[in-house]
């Protein structure tokens, strides 16, 4: 019987098998950041051990950094302490760090691919659930807890039970104005916020293959929002060309040899999946969420549904109450005062170009506070070189320095209580963007157009 893409990569990384069906999985690349690593380093110190393969771990500061004046010391004391701790730990344990001020600094899931540190066929982990992003290159990439960060630092391995395999096929052609963010929000709305639990998802089909690498990363990024451990896409020419020539990619003959191997990474025709779903790209509208988990999404033109018959009405209504919505209401035309374009889901150069192309020559609505946060120093630099920062500023948007920012509101970039924010990030949980903040997840085009209109618009109809 044939093998799935997932099995090919997994099986190549099993260093040892333990009785009871647990594999000792070897990790090729480990990314760390300031928030989920300090306790892991302390653990190493308590045990008196060093980092086993320091060259395989790469660190950056992203979650907790300010997005203004990054050249100055961080003002908030606890954040500064945490970021300093990362620097200390990296020095002490010999780990490469792209800290604040470094030209490679940025959101961990943006810098990995952009530096060529993420490559097809790898196993990649990070103490962050959106590590699934790297699956766009045909990697097994997933988020882990801090105890596991410590395990990887100590042994370069994790004890893992092999998850089940799911394939989601999207065929056909997207309507104009519908982006990869809409595809993934649509899929999550169909499967629910827990529909992927226990699975690793392969995305396939002509609509997926037609996407750029950036757009594929957006899809894989949100795999976790349906509960899946991760998502991946078979590497093709686009993936290979994306990696070619990047800072840490193999060069010359080494690259060609690697690329030949990468081309063998696909699901065989007779490979078996534990679950399969098929969707048609034509059915997908620009999406927006109305509730407090990413599964609560609808096409912008649709009405907010009634509480589900087989679900928990209390939870559903509590969520709507938090959002200030009621069943039957439409999102289209709803006034919005905050717009956030950023996060590891949609802060790459392509996202910024797309948003800038739309806002060019326009002005944001008076009532809107619009913020653009590039995913990395390199994205920021590129955006400046292309004059995107100026376009945003002239339209009245605030163009910031890189970090996670209002995606999780750990720094000062928060949305005030009760305010609506159309956000290109990945989570609309209660309080995610600040206590009481009401997050509506959408694509960068919907976000940009909403900022101009001051209310939610249908991205298919904007010019």
């Amino acid at each position, binding site marked *: 019987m044939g093998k799935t893409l997932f099995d090919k990569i997994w099986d190549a990384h099993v*260093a*040892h098998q*333990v009785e*009871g069906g*647990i594999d*000792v999985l*070897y990790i090729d690349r480990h990314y760390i950041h300031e*928030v989920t690593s*300090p*306790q892991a380093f*302390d653990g190493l110190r308590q*045990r008196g*051990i060093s980092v*086993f393969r320091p060259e395989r771990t790469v660190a950056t500061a992203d*979650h*907790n950094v300010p997005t203004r004046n990054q050249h100055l010391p961080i003002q908030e004391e*606890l954040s500064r*302490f*945490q970021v300093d*701790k990362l620097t200390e730990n990296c020095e002490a344990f010999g780990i490469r760090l792209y800290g604040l001020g470094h030209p490679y600094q940025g959101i961990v899931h943006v810098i990995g691919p952009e530096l060529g540190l993420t490559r097809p066929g790898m196993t990649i982990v990070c*103490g*962050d*659930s959106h590590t699934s992003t790297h699956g766009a290159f045909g990697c097994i990439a997933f*988020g*882990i*807890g*801090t*105890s*596991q960060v*410590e*395990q990887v630092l*100590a*042994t*370069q*391995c*994790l*004890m893992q*039970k092999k*998850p089940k395999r799911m394939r989601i096929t999207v065929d056909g052609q997207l309507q104009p104005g519908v982006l990869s963010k809409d595809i993934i929000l649509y899929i999550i709305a169909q499967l629910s*916020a*827990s529909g992927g*639990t226990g699975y690793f998802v392969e995305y396939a089909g002509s609509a997926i293959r037609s996407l750029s690498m950036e757009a594929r990363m957006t899809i894989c990024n949100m795999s*976790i929002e349906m*509960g899946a*451990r991760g998502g991946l896409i078979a590497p093709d020419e686009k993936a290979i060309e994306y990696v070619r020539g990047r800072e840490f990619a193999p060069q010359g003959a080494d690259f060609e040899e690697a690329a030949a191997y990468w081309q063998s990474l696909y699901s065989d025709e007779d490979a078996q999946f534990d679950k399969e779903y098929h969707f048609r790209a034509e059915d997908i509208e620009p999406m927006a969420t109305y509730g407090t*988990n990413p599964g609560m999404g609808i096409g912008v033109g649709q009405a907010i549904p009634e509480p589900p018959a087989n*679900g*928990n009405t*209390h*939870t559903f209504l*509590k969520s709507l109450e938090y959002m200030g919505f009621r069943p039957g209401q439409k999102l289209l035309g709803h006034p919005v005062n905050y717009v956030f374009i950023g996060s590891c889901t949609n802060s790459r150069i392509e996202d910024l170009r797309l948003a800038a192309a739309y806002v060019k020559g326009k002005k944001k609505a008076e009532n809107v506070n619009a913020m653009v946060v590039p995913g990395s120093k390199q994205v920021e630099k590129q955006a400046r070189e292309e004059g995107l920062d100026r376009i945003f500023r002239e339209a009245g948007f605030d163009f910031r320095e890189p970090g996670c920012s209002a995606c*999780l*509101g*750990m720094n000062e970039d928060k949305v005030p209580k009760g305010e609506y924010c159309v956000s290109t990030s990945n*989570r609309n*949980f*209660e*309080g*995610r963007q600040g*206590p009481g903040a009401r997050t509506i997840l959408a694509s960068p085009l919907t976000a940009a157009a909403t900022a101009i209109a001051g209310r939610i618009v249908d991205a298919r109809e904007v010019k």
Partner: protein
Amino acid sequence: MEKFEKLRSTAVPLPIEEVDTDQIIPARFLKATTREGFGDNLFRDWRFEPDGTPRQDFILNNPIYGGQILVAGRNFGCGSSREHAAWALYDYGFRVVVSSFFADIFRGNALNNGLLPVQVPESFLQGIFSAIEADPKTQFLADLEAQRFTIEATGQSTGFDIDPYKKMCMLNGYDDIDFLLSLKDKIETFEQSRKS
């Protein structure tokens, strides 16, 4: 990690589904660099007003309910991978979380910290909520060795699944890292085999 064998306790009911780790411990409290103290901010925004006064309508502030078992609606622990969620529950004093469904990463994090996730059928979960409603002092027994969870008042019980390896770890207070460190030779051999 502390050993876990058996726990008899009253339980705190939280009949809400999709409780994500941002609710368990909001991001702005993740700035600490040690594992302790997160219990103070467990369920922070449900538990306290912005000025820090306890919200009377939240279950943890109701003196009628207490104990080392938290019972919550399905898909508990979804969202962020922050292990701080498991630390916060543990630090607050919980040793068992019961739900009809757990998010993957949370389940793993809980097991790595001596917090036992007990997954029960939805109907049994509703039975637990009813039992607590009928009598907040009702006792429950989580028996890891037997893999059973019992409502003592009614004698109803259900089995629960746990990975045999993880069970062994919990019963003995071992963590993965001890085991992985013992495999160093095998890991090095594997690395060598990949190079050739």
